[in-house]
């Protein structure tokens, strides 16, 4: 049962979107790239919100989905001639989907904590495979490649500039947000939320809970993979560090800081965390992660609903 979104929401949405579109004009080069990175991590965080916020499954596996998306794109950009943006997307999403299916199959039958730990271990499995399979993945050093152009074969080819890449990423993020919003408001999304509220009851009503969970993991994994592809395109390298479980951990941090179950909350959380880290690293040159970590712990204890948690109801109308 979907309800018509309120006017206020759409006004807010377009205002923010407009601000984001013009923002880079006011910013120097470094900050434009930084903003692009924030958007990409925001997409990753948002993808994980499907599991954490809407289905109630804490996953530490997102680094696997993200990383495989990245490596998938790398594979495309290194093997196809000429390197095609769209093929990179296809390879990346496919890789992420396969990994998501694998993880989903083993993990979804497990409850809560076991699920969290198992997804973490799976992240590490992929990390080790990528790290040691040097011939294919470049091992420790990863892979480097060149950035493809925004092209429709036969029509035009436009190499990305920092500016146009930013807008491209913004467009992908915006569309992803709208799609995910649609999904969470659909009957499918309602079932996911019902699983979060009371899994036993949802099962008792007759829903095949495992299947819904598997789809949720795959959906989440796909968008995480999408973020991975974007990252590859932006930075032109793929490295095993991104598959390490710490990336998953940071993703969960973004979610909690921003407010789970809101879709935009995690994006805000990612922005807050990255900005905080950037700011602190300037003052404290090293070990800025110590105060960041302490702030995070304090938030978990005192502000578990996150920065946008108070707006959760409203954002989900």
């Amino acid at each position, binding site marked *: 049962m979907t309800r018509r979104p309120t006017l206020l929401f759409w006004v807010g949405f377009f205002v923010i979107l407009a601000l984001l579109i013009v923002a880079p004009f006011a910013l120097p080069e470094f900050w434009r790239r930084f903003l692009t990175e924030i958007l990409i991590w925001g997409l990753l965080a948002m993808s994980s919100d499907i599991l*954490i916020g809407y289905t109630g499954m804490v996953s530490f596996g997102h680094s696997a989905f993200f990383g495989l998306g990245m490596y998938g794109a790398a594979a495309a950009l290194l093997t196809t001639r000429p390197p095609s943006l769209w093929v990179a997307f296809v390879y990346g999403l496919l890789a992420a989907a396969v990994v998501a299916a694998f993880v989903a199959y083993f993990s979804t039958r497990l409850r809560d*904590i076991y699920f969290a730990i198992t997804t973490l271990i799976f992240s590490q*499995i992929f990390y*080790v495979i990528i*790290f040691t399979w040097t011939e294919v993945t470049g091992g420790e050093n990863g892979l480097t490649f060149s950035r493809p152009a925004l092209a429709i074969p036969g029509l035009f080819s436009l190499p990305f500039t920092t500016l146009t890449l930013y807008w491209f990423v913004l467009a992908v993020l915006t569309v992803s947000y709208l799609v995910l919003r649609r999904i969470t408001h659909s009957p499918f999304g309602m079932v996911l939320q019902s699983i979060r509220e009371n899994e036993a009851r949802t099962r008792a009503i007759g829903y095949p809970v495992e299947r819904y969970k598997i789809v949720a993991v795959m959906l989440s994994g796909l968008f995480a993979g999408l973020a991975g592809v974007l990252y590859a395109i932006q930075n032109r390298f793929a490295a095993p560090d991104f598959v390490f479980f710490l990336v998953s951990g940071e993703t*969960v*941090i973004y979610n*909690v800081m921003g407010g789970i179950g809101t879709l935009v909350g995690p994006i805000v959380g990612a922005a807050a965390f990255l900005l905080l880290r950037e700011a602190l690293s300037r003052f404290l040159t090293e070990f800025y992660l110590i105060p960041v*970590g302490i702030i995070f712990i304090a938030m978990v*204890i005192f502000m578990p609903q996150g920065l946008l948690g108070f707006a959760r109801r409203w954002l989900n109308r």
Partner: protein
Amino acid sequence: MLEQILIQTINGIVVGMILALVASGLTLIFGIMDVVNFAHGEFLMLGAYAGVIALAGTGSFWLALVIASLVVAALGAAIHVTTLRPLLGRDPLNTILATFGVSLVLQNYALWQFGPVPRKIEEPITGYFGLFYLEYPWYRLMIAVLSAAIIAALWLFLKYSTYGVWIRATTQDRVMAQAMGIPVPRVLTIVFAIGSGMAAASGVLFGPLVGVNHAMGLDWVLKAFIVVVVGGMGNLGGSIAAAIFISLMESYASLWVSPAQAIIVSFVVLILTLLIRPTGLFVPTPK
């Protein structure tokens, strides 16, 4: 060939015992408190560093072992009281996040205080004994024996001491333990402290075998989690059996592949466990 297998068997048991020590603390914490302690590896790491400092200060490995364990146990208690007790009664997700945050802080603290260059702990017993054509270090055997001793001490503590009975009662039924007047929050803090202390001890014991650096916890926490899941969460005996089993498998595997790849063995064991017996390979079938 036979000698190699035998040597790997001993290696496997030695590493397995340390892993068992680490995993015991973790499974104790999980079994009683339902807390997934992400910072467990960091307690191991800090224990190793504390060992380095204590060794430099006292010149005795044994004193260093004891001091390091106590210091980190106290740290664990402090962390529990400040960050985990406020989360009692809340969704378990919160504790996972809090311990993850703690692990982040502790790791970077170590990096800040001690720098990125690995330190070394000298073995207390140098010297080898003849094992076939090889010379096998006494120290490694000592590690296995000590780990076993610590675990045995834990078992005795749980069985016979006041707090031990309280801990067992709290594990079985936390609500009724409270209704019986058992100060459950205090019990939980003590369990956390014990688990941390055990991790620290394993850090000191393992220190001489590898370098002591701020990231050493990461490898162990992962293995420990696998052991805990395979052994059955909260099942002390199961964790020990699983630790030895997995380490043996990895030791044998490293006869054929590189150690970095041998870890895949533990992943395979985990996957098989999840498929066949998700409650734990070494758990008796629930009645």
